[in-house]
């Protein structure tokens, strides 16, 4: 990462007509960039009063991410990414309502240890007024394998003040739950996902820009969680998400405001609202401090029940907390330093969920999570 002074001077120099007579907004990356990030997050223990059986300890997860972005020739950019995720801990198995009326969660007994690895390759072809992108990837765990691919197109209009983009992606997943015979679980299931998006970006003035995108996803196949007793979900799911992003630079403060709003709806009966607010504060020539606040609120799925129904009567049933009505507030602080060609960043995040944070009514689950995350990142440009 070049010093901020150099970036500012270079940008201004490149705008001179004698230097860059054919101004191109979309250009391949000028440098090769490698980035690494290690993150660790820990879910808070399940509160004792809700634990019916099993271990109250929840997930402890470590994720390593690697990414390489490099120009290839004059017109192409290549992105290689990989990540390794290690999970250990227990998760909710099923829910009951013991005689005293309070909800009780039965946690999975044994602590699981799992590793997930994913790899993806993306190639981008830059043209005079836009670009085309193509990507493939795979994700593997001992019980889950996914292959995905997609392509997208981006076009600049209106003197490069407006950008239209669109794309599709497909994913084919195979699920083979562990300990299937022991717990009478299904085996050898599959799921197919297709997704499409369109988006518009618009420069508002010298200091601000706006982007709006709509994304539709359709899933087909085995959507039930095989590790949750009595869980049964429909075999198809359609989701729609509408995201809006606003970026504004405030020169008096030497910082940028980021506002993001996403509205979501699906045919499981879940609606949600996500609101993100962050402030990118420049400190001197080499540091950035970024506080962030996120608010999330979701409704419950149509077939969510706080307590599992084992009677077999309802066709679809789940007590999975992720399908309950709840809200979450998370606060994060990121600190970044750029020294010569290197960047170092550090993030601390605290995520708290509560059914009272949601403005939706609906079934509640005591198993909603709180977690703390720490990340350390390194980047190098050459």
């Amino acid at each position: 990462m070049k010093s901020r002074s150099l970036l500012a001077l270079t940008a201004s120099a490149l705008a001179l007509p004698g230097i860059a007579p054919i101004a191109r907004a979309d250009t391949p990356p000028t440098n090769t960039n490698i980035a690494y990030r290690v993150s660790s997050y820990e879910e808070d223990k399940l509160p004792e009063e809700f634990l019916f059986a099993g271990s109250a300890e929840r997930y402890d997860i470590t994720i390593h991410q690697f990414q390489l972005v490099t120009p290839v020739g004059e017109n192409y950019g290549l992105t290689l990414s990989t990540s390794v995720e290690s999970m250990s801990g227990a998760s909710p198995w099923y829910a009951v309502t013991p005689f005293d009326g309070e909800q009780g969660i039965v946690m999975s007994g044994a602590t699981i240890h799992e590793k997930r690895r994913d790899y993806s390759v993306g190639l981008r072809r830059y043209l005079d007024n836009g670009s085309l992108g193509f990507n493939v990837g795979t994700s593997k765990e001992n019980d889950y394998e996914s292959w995905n691919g997609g392509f997208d197109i981006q076009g600049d209009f209106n003197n490069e003040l407006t950008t239209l983009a669109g794309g599709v992606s497909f994913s084919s997943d195979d699920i083979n739950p562990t300990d299937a015979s022991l717990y009478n679980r299904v085996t050898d299931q599959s799921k197919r996902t297709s997704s499409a998006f369109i988006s518009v970006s618009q420069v508002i003035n010298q200091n601000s820009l706006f982007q709006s995108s709509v994304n539709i996803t359709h899933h087909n196949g085995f959507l039930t969680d095989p590790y949750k007793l009595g869980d049964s979900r429909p075999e198809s799911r359609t989701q729609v998400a509408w995201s809006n992003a606003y970026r504004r630079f405030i020169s008096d403060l030497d910082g940028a405001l980021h506002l993001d709003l996403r509205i979501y709806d699906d045919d499981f009966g879940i609606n949600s609202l996500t609101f993100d607010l962050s402030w990118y504060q420049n400190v001197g020539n080499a540091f950035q401090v970024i506080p962030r606040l996120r608010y999330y609120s979701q409704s419950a799925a149509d077939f969510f029940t706080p307590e599992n129904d084992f009677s077999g009567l309802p066709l679809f049933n789940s007590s999975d907390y992720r399908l309950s009505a709840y809200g979450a507030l998370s606060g994060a602080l990121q600190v970044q330093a750029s020294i010569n060609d290197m960047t170092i960043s550090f993030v601390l995040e605290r995520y708290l969920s509560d059914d009272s944070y949601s403005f939706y009514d609906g079934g509640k689950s005591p198993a909603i999570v709180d977690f703390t995350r720490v990340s350390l990142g390194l980047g190098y440009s050459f």
Partner: protein
Amino acid sequence: MGSPCALFFRGNNKKFNSALAIKLESEIKRLENRYSRFLPDSITTQINRLAGTGNVMKVDKETASLLDYAQTCYKQSEGLFDITSGSLRTLWNYQDLSDKQSLPDESDIQLALEKIGWGKVEFHHGSICLPVAGMEIDFGGIVKEYAADCVATLAEREGCVSGMVELGGDIRIFGVGIETEKMPPWQIGIRDPFNTGHPHALIDLHYGALATSGDYERYTLIRGKKYSHILNPITGWPVEGYSSVSVIADQCVLAGTAASLAVLKGENGEQWLRELGLPFLCIDPQGKATGTIQ
């Protein structure tokens, strides 16, 4: 441009080279006609003539982007690089080396400072207005390097395989054949500020620009002490720092700005250059050289 200019080409196609040389020279002439403050019809003179009248002048894309570049330099140097500071030169006479002058009065300096300051200039949306009578802008610190870059762009557009332009000590190397035909680098000499015969260092440069700023050639002699011709626009006094600073960058404007800013920052120049990240060489008045150029 008021400075010596030289063009070099590699390749044996004499007809192509001489035709190209004519095109490039006229490009340099074009910029001189537009921006020289000595010419009565130049854009610079037109802008300066309106100073203090309250009239706003709408400028074309090229001028607007040069003014924007000057503004970026002003901000990045915290006000030290200021294209309105030219009028300070009347206080410090560089033509007379007889050592018969005396230091200017502080009150004269303060009076002159009232007429300078980019912060006072109204520049937005492609229009400029100089609010104070007697204020003037001077592209001298930018347009020579910009001309070198324009020459390079034009030469490459015409298909020149490998060439070099030198404008008043600033160098820009260009060419479309440099990578594909594996051309050897150009050997550039950084002038020794004290012994203007022999180069201080020789550098191999494949592509890009080398610009040098310093006060070894022009200075005022007052009571036996040398005063630099590079003036601090905030205090009105000459800077005290390096005798010569050379910087390498892809564009000549960038190299030239970095070298000028380093000299303007005086003793802090070297530290600033280290943080900036471009290869550089600083030579102090005692002849000691420091820097990251190989």
